[in-house]
Structures are given as C-alpha cells and as structure tokens.
C-alpha cells in the first residue's frame, strides 16, 4: 500500500463510521418521536413503548434498504 492509498483507506473508513453513527442517531430520533410518550410522568419505558421501539427500529431498517435500492437504481448510490 502506498501512503496515498493508506490515507484514502483511512478517509473511507472514517466516512463509513460517520454514516453508521448518523444512521443510528436518526433512527433513535425518529423512533423517539413515533413511540415515546412526552408527558414524562415516569422515567421508565412502558410495555407499549418498548414494543413500539422494537418495531420502529425494524421498520426504519427496512426503509434504509428501500431508499438504498432507489438510489442505486438512479445511479446515485452512495457506494
């Protein structure tokens, strides 16, 4: 590996990590809005919230795949 290739590999790994972290953060934010009761009487998640969060995460993940396919089809897939 030349130094340039190594730098490029580092940059790519960094961007991949940032993408993952961002994906996670957006999933957390979206499912928080969808599932969590904002009255905050209690600091615990109740049963309904817990199962909503699980389903929400799975559905978000499915949406990532759909959008990825659409971007790929249009030739602007991110990778």
């Amino acid at each position, binding site marked *: 590996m030349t130094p340039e290739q190594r730098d490029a590999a580092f940059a790519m790994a960094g961007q991949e990590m940032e993408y993952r972290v961002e994906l996670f953060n957006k999933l957390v934010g979206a499912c928080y809005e969808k599932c969590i009761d904002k009255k905050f009487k209690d600091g615990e998640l109740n049963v309904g919230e817990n199962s909503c969060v699980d389903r929400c995460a799975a*559905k978000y993940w499915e*949406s990532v795949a759909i959008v990825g396919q659409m971007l790929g089809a249009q030739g602007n897939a991110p990778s």
Partner: protein
Amino acid sequence: MDPAMLDGFPEEDKAKMMGMIEAMQTRDSLKMYNNLVERCFSTCVQSFRRKTLEKDEERCVSKCCEKFLKHSARTSVRFAELNAQSMQQMGGPPQ
C-alpha cells in the same frame, strides 16, 4: 466551485483539491442518504403493530424517495441558473 480557480496551481495541488472535492461528495451523498430515509420514514410510517412495513407504507417510502430525487434534480438545474445569473449581474453570488 469553478475548476478554473485551480489554474496556475501546481499539479500536486490540483490533485489535492480534487481529492478534497471527492471526499466532500462522498460525505454529502451519505448524508443525503440518511436524510432521505429519515424524511420519508417520518412521513410514511405511522403504525407500529407489526415489525415489517405495511404494503402502503412501503409504497409511500418508495414514492417519497422518487419524488424527492426528482425535486432535488430540478432544483439543482434552477440553482445553477441562478448562480450563473448572479455571477453575470454582480460579479459574484450573494454571499
């Protein structure tokens, strides 16, 4: 950025600049990907009785994505025109 800006720079600087632009584009397209998912998911997915998307939610996410990309493509043409116009009129974009 106007590539002419790079005229007169040594070759290695041009290469560095091109690398910078490329890295920025990769980052932006990954960011756009994440934003698009967030946007279409939030608009389209409302029910959480099952852990897979309903047929109409799936369709909505897909149409939402298609429409956003078309909107974005059209806007990018307008953006280039407005940019070109203000270069002519004022010797530069509003900044």
